[in-house]
């Protein structure tokens, strides 16, 4: 093998809307190895969460990621309600699922657009984003904001969806469905998209299992993993729907899974709306006076996969420990399988295919040391730090004896 050339993508690359750095090590046109560097987005959210009350944490976790800004409050609410042992009302469940599914539609449309943009096919980008607008308008009508909805709280939701709004919502949804038909037809039949995405960035079923990938990335390779079915929460056990899978594992299969999932989402929303009509208006909250001591885990299916929140409560009004794992954190590791051996042009769409969301994924990468200046904490340093702490604790324990 000849000399390898390093092609950097990022950190502030016009193709990506978020800062992250990919290093493609190439031999001619072929990618031989890939490394990535994140940390440009780190905001120490887990630490901040410990200084906020349970009601405030919802606004914080919503801002982990703007695109899947319901899945994080969803998982956090599931975790806190597990600690408190609260069962929310049916109406609150329907509203939660409604918001979650509407968000999935907007996120998948956004991805289809961005994937078109990554292929250099800007018509798809413009179309998908145009059809996404009615969904955002619907969000604004229901929640008051286009992106961060602030709908969740411990024990229910903040705002009701009045029953007199339901016909309008149905009308907008029918419109969205028509547009989705159009877009799906256009994307699925387009020979250019077929040529660029079929057989590109293949993840086999075994790769997905080895890398523990989640969400549409896993479902496109034939692994039917979906938290809404595996660990049902909110209104998902009350409605009928099916998990969409594909077998090929290439970029086209991922697009297919996402486009077909939008139909499932629309169907879930319609069933939620009928559920809302059956339940009493205004019955959206269970009063939770205090959060007892204990710990709880909450999971939710974000548009990108499983979101996991773990909360430890010490009986006070703010979490003692809050651990978050976002889906992109595991999905990004599959780049090692999907990108290597591809040409550079195909590598970019393979990177985009898992719908990576770096603002969810950030871990502390750089620590500032005032004495010696800037210091990069690599894996070895962190392991040393952690083992050092353990041995110190052990020493103290021995002294106590």
């Amino acid at each position, binding site marked *: 093998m000849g000399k390898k050339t390093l092609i950097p993508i990022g950190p*502030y690359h016009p193709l990506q809307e978020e800062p992250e750095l990919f290093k493609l090590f190439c031999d001619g046109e072929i990618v031989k190895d890939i490394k990535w560097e994140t940390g440009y987005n780190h*905001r120490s959210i887990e630490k901040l969460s410990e200084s906020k009350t349970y009601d405030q944490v919802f606004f914080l976790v919503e801002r982990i990621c703007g695109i899947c800004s319901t899945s994080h409050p969803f998982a956090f609410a599931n975790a806190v309600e597990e600690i408190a042992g609260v069962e929310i009302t049916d109406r609150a469940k329907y509203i939660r699922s409604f918001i979650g599914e509407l968000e999935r539609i907007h996120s998948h449309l956004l991805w289809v657009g961005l994937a078109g943009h990554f292929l250099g096919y800007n018509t798809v980008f413009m179309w998908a984003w145009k059809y996404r607008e009615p969904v955002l308008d619907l969000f604004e009508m229901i929640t008051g904001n286009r992106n961060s909805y602030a709908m969740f709280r411990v024990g229910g939701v903040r705002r009701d969806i009045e029953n007199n709004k339901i016909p309008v919502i149905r009308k907008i949804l029918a419109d969205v469905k028509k547009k989705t038909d159009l877009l799906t037809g256009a994307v699925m039949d387009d020979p250019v998209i077929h040529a660029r995405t079929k057989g590109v960035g293949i993840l086999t079923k075994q790769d997905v299992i080895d890398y523990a990938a989640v969400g549409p990335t896993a479902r496109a390779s034939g692994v039917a993993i979906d938290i809404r079915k595996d660990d049902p929460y909110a209104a998902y056990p009350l409605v009928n729907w099916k998990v969409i899978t594909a077998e090929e594992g290439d970029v086209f299969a991922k697009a297919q899974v996402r486009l077909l999932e939008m139909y499932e989402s629309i169907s879930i929303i319609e069933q939620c709306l009928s559920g809302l009509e059956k339940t009493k208006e205004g019955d959206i909250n269970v009063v939770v006076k205090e959060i007892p001591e204990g710990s709880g885990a909450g999971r939710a299916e974000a548009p990108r996969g499983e979101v996991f929140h773990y909360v430890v409560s010490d009986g006070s009004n703010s979490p003692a420990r809050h651990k978050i794992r976002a889906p992109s954190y595991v999905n990004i590791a599959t780049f090692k399988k999907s990108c290597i051996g591809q040409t550079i042009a195909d590598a970019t769409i393979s990177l985009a295919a898992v719908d990576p969301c770096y603002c969810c994924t950030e871990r502390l990468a*750089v620590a500032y040391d005032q004495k010696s200046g800037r210091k990069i904490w690599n894996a070895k340093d962190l392991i040393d730090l952690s083992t050092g702490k353990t041995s110190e604790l052990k020493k103290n324990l021995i002294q106590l004896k």
Partner: protein
Amino acid sequence: MGFKNFCFKKSLWVFHFGGASCNNCDIEILDCLTPKHDLERFGILLVGSIRHADVLLVNGSINMKDKNRLLEIYNQAPRPILVVAIGACGCTGGLFADSITFAGPVDKIIPVDAYIPGCPPKPEAIIGGIVKLVNKK
């Protein structure tokens, strides 16, 4: 009409710097360019390099890793350049002002010409802010 006014009279080319953001402002900026708002009809174009840009949009709270890179990008910009801080995080740090990796809001690092608050600001607000800025100059 001064030289600066002359520079900003016609098509504004925009470079977007996303700091430690939650993606909301980023997608709303992209939203401005898509058919509903379609800023490209006014000649406003998102460009790939700061060396081609007239306006630098900065959003997100700036963390320690971003800080020097933002300065570097600002120094590479051809003058005159307009800097717009977008969103609550860009203006003040917002929810993340207490974060341990926070390195100051945008105006502590580079001079800012306009602030567009909101979490996230609507595309209309972003367009309104830029129009105001251009009219003032």
